[in-house]
């Protein structure tokens, strides 16, 4: 398996062409008790793209993310990441898969008793044979990539919400994963911090070729970073749209999609 590389057609700098599918979701259904959250959701995520899962509150965006990364089992359907079925893989193969994905949790989920630098060093210490000094240098580089070099020695309780999210991305980047999953990266942030985070996601995608799967309902973020998106809907209990977010905004005829992109009450 080769690492993700961003492919571009000659003369098409602004419109990248992405590699083969790295995530394949087939007929996914999520059910909690008797309540079906969504059913028959199928999509593919291509190597190197920023793929956005969007939709209103309660439509199952975060549940879909948990289902994709193997935290919650699907009621029906299957997901494969980098050619490996998430729910039938166990042991060393599963660990190998987990090392190739990174997750940024909604609240950062950093370990409160460790500094930001130590948080980023933890996966390096667990999963690599890098010498101790090298681990620190690599962790410093990851924090530098998200603009947190100055805060490396601080505890999570000593930094702002935006910094926590950035540190969460740095920790998710620790093992240079092929795919990064971000759960609501912009939620609760001011517009400037949020725009900075969007820029960072775009930069990392373009320069490192990392594939991003982003769960969000922040319209500005969706349009700023998304190469492609799917939209979930609570009423329809499933996927109601798929495509380039800007195309959906301008051309979709689905009333819920139009209302979402035009910020209208449904």
């Amino acid at each position, binding site marked *: 398996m080769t690492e993700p590389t961003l492919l571009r057609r000659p003369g098409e700098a602004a419109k990248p062409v992405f590699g083969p599918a790295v995530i394949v979701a087939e007929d996914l259904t999520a059910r909690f008790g008797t309540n079906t959250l969504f059913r028959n959701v199928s999509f593919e995520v291509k190597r190197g793209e920023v793929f956005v899962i969007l939709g209103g509150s309660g439509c199952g965006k975060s549940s879909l993310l948990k289902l994709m990364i193997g935290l919650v089992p699907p009621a029906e359907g299957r997901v494969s990441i980098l050619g490996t079925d998430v729910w039938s893989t166990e042991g060393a193969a599963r660990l190998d898969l987990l090392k190739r994905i990174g997750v940024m949790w909604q609240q950062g989920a950093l370990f409160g*008793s460790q500094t930001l630098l130590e948080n980023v060093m933890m996966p390096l210490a667990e999963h690599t044979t890098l010498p101790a000094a090298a681990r620190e240098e*690599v962790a410093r580089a990851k924090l*530098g990539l998200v603009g947190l070099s100055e805060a490396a020695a601080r505890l999570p309780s000593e930094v702002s919400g935006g910094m926590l999210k950035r540190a969460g991305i740095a920790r998710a980047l620790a*093992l*240079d994963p092929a795919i990064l999953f971000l759960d609501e990266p912009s939620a609760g942030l001011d517009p400037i911090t949020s725009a900075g985070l969007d820029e960072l996601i775009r930069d990392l995608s373009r320069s490192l070729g990392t594939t991003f799967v982003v769960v969000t309902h922040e319209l500005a973020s969706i349009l700023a970073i998304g190469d492609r998106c799917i939209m979930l809907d609570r009423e329809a209990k499933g996927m109601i749209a798929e495509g380039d977010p800007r195309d959906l905004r301008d051309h979709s005829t689905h009333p819920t999609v139009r209302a979402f992109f035009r910020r209208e009450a449904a």
Partner: protein
Amino acid sequence: MAKQAQASTGLEVSGGAALLSGRVDTEAAARLWDPLMAEARKAQGLVLDLSKVEAVDTTGATLVLSAEAAGARIEGASPPVVAVLDRVRAALAAPRPKPATYRFSPVSGIGRRVVNAGHNLLDALGFVGELLVVLLGTVIRPHRLRFRELLRHLDEAGTRAFGLAVLLGSLLGVILAFQSAIPLRRFGAEIFVPNLVGISLLRELGPLMAGVVLAGRTGSAYAAELGTMTVNEEVAALRIMGIDPMALLVLPRVLAGMLVMPVLSLLLTLAGLIGMALIMGMLGFPLTTVTQQLGSTVTVGDMLGGLFKSLFFGLAIAGIGCRAGLGAGRGPRAVGDAATSAVVGGIVAIVLLDGGFAVLYERLGL
């Protein structure tokens, strides 16, 4: 000298040049870190040829840049590799964070602890004052008490702890009976085991062990619950809405603690006496003998004295648990710290109170 790290990603060193080839990812960087850094330090001005590098991730880039910082000169990198190197170079350009410095200063440390202890004492007195005001206020205006909440806490702190109290009590009775029978047998005085166990359980061990159960089970739960509410700013929201957290949160818990303690204490004591009677039966003493012995020594006053002080044990344990929760700090350890201080504080408090009651009963001739 030539080295080959691996077929796919390799490091070949000859003379003053090192050729890095293949994909320099995290795994390759871990393998090549020490040999490359050693070469870079050994041969100042080492030429690091990256022309055969297919791709580099940020960890691989950190390795290359660390070699550069150690004196190597980078050459031949392709534009995609240069792009990643530039990004990581910019990331590493910021100054290193200063490590936290710890200064050992015992005098100021002791002083700080004393001042903190003083503040804590004042806070505790303030809390007790507030609690008394709310308790008295509730006597005057009983509708302030939320009975549904009180019933919930009575259930959680009381009925759900009955099983544990019975189990602990019976085991305690069995152990006490066994342990005291061994030395008393030497003097042919096994008949006095019920006297010893009965007095111990009714006056001291029953209330104390019930207090330990309440502190471990309920005091810590109160601290964790109220601590989580404090950390989530729910308590602040109550205050801003003009709702007194003492009346809404603390009062039902403290009343529940006070009311369940005598019941738990009685239950534990009775279970202990039954356990003791079982052992006495095994030693050949019939139940009537055991009850006669108990009746000759143990009085209703002993039982009432134990139950009376257990009321105060319940008040102290629940109050300390609530105060620990409401005083929880920030951060992920705050709730755990609150629960720990509730259990430790609760157990210390009941032992101190027990000592105080022992002196009081002795003075009163009880």
